């Protein structure tokens, strides 16, 4: 008999793989690794803020929403800085430094609030946001992931060609009547929203790697967009499922196993070259 928590974990990883498998090549082609890094760090800030509010208001469910809202605010701030003439890297650098500082400050506040409130369930949440706990995913978490993930998946699919064109030549898209700012804003918000949906299961420490490496590997083995997407999707799916099954047998955190597997594949391909 397969334990229910394992089935939930496997279903979650299928959704995670579909989302990251599709997003990862875009992150590589558009050169969004730095933005992804800042976005995922703002998730931690949002999660800590959500925990503080959750402790004060006694509502556990607001952590993910706080993470999502903060991430979107940070993404919009980055887009606004870019609009005002800062280079993408400078805009991300400015936002990331604020977010990093605020996260440390928020942790200080969280510890104070935790000292006055019952905090054991939240301490688990902090750990799961950092390292990922796919085996602890609840049915509600899974439903949110599947519904939110499906919406983002279809939106991303509909806009995929536009995202490719904007990555290729933003001036060209604007010149022919496309709204580059709207496309980029949507892409950045999707990066943040996907991060918010899956961070609790994948973990912040490894999320960056799992979001970037499948696309990077796929682009090393193919130069055809359909093949790149196929390799990225199947690679993410294979690594996610295998890591969960190995974690089930060995009690090692699955996101750690997935990250190491991706690192080994990427390193082997680089070495072969």
């Amino acid at each position, binding site marked *: 008999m397969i334990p229910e928590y394992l089935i939930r974990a496997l279903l979650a990883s299928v959704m995670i793989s579909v989302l990251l498998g599709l997003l990862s090549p875009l992150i590589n082609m558009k050169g969004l690794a730095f933005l992804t890094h800042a976005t995922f760090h703002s998730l931690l800030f949002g999660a800590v803020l959500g925990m503080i509010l959750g402790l004060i208001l006694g509502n556990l469910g607001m952590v993910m929403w706080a993470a999502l809202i903060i991430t979107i605010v940070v993404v919009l701030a980055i887009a606004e800085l870019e609009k005002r003439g800062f280079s993408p890297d400078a805009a991300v650098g400015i936002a990331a430094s604020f977010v990093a500082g605020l996260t440390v400050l928020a942790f200080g506040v969280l510890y104070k609030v935790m000292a006055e409130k019952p905090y054991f369930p939240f301490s688990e949440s902090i750990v799961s946001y950092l390292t990922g706990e796919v085996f602890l995913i609840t049915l509600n978490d899974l439903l949110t992931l599947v519904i939110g993930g499906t919406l983002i998946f279809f939106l991303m699919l509909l806009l995929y060609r*536009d995202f*490719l064109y904007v990555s290729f030549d933003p001036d060209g898209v604007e010149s022919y*009547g496309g709204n580059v700012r709207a496309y980029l804003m949507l892409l950045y918000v999707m990066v943040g929203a996907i991060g918010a949906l899956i961070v609790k299961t994948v973990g912040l420490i490894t999320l960056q790697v799992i979001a970037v490496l499948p696309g990077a590997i796929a682009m090393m083995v193919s130069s055809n967009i359909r093949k790149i997407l196929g390799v990225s999707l199947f690679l993410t799916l294979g690594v996610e499922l295998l890591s969960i099954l190995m974690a089930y047998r060995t009690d090692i955190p699955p996101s750690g196993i997935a990250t190491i597997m991706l690192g080994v594949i990427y390193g082997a391909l680089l070495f072969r070259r």
Partner: protein
Amino acid sequence: MEAVSAENVDILYESYIAVKGLSFGIEEGETLLLLGPNGAGKTTLLRTIAGFHRNYHGKLLVFGKTPEDARELISYVPQSHSLNGLVPLKAVEVVSMGAIYKKGFFHFRVPEEALSRAREALSFVGLDDVAERRFSELSGGQRQRVLLARALMSNPKLLLLDEPLSALDPSARAEVAAVLGKIKREKSVTMIIATHDINPLMEIGNRVMLINRKLIAFGTPEEVLRDEVIKSVYGPLARAIKVESRLYCITGDVHLHLKGEQP
């Protein structure tokens, strides 16, 4: 009707004036060759006329409208090496970009009609056989011609070309220049071409504008390409020479040979 007219245009980045006091006008169907050293403001001027850069003072009109309002009449052709080669688009997909953004926000599939027009545009620039090849795998000259095909997809009245001949070998330059000549003859499109190498384009240029963060000279090639004018921008080695009634401009690629050295 004047295709482009500028009166006392200052182009700014924040409060810094990148190009100062430009006044010029070109008629519909004319080709303007925009010449100037690196950092002179050629790309900035093109991007301002294209409506991408909006921080300017003065009066700038494209077919009687502001650049932002004239967007549908303009096609901007960037330098091909400024495009992101990591995106694996086929040549025909790059060209069809020029047709799909007039309608809708989502472009999951390129309509068959746009693909068919893209193939025709590729054929016009002499690239029937590269439609299915990846853009980044094409030669520099082919890439530039693909971008020209893309620019024609929106039936523009004004083509703005940012150094279309840069980083090309002489035969590729000649190919691109020939396509530009064909566009001028068969499409009657007004063109502004920023370039370092004016010589291959001399046959299609009605007017030449020399800038160096301000207007140095504007007029016919004979009026502008005079020794004293180009020396004032490119230094004492620059020259304008006439060979068999054809004018050549030597600006940067001058080779000095010291005594005793083999040329």
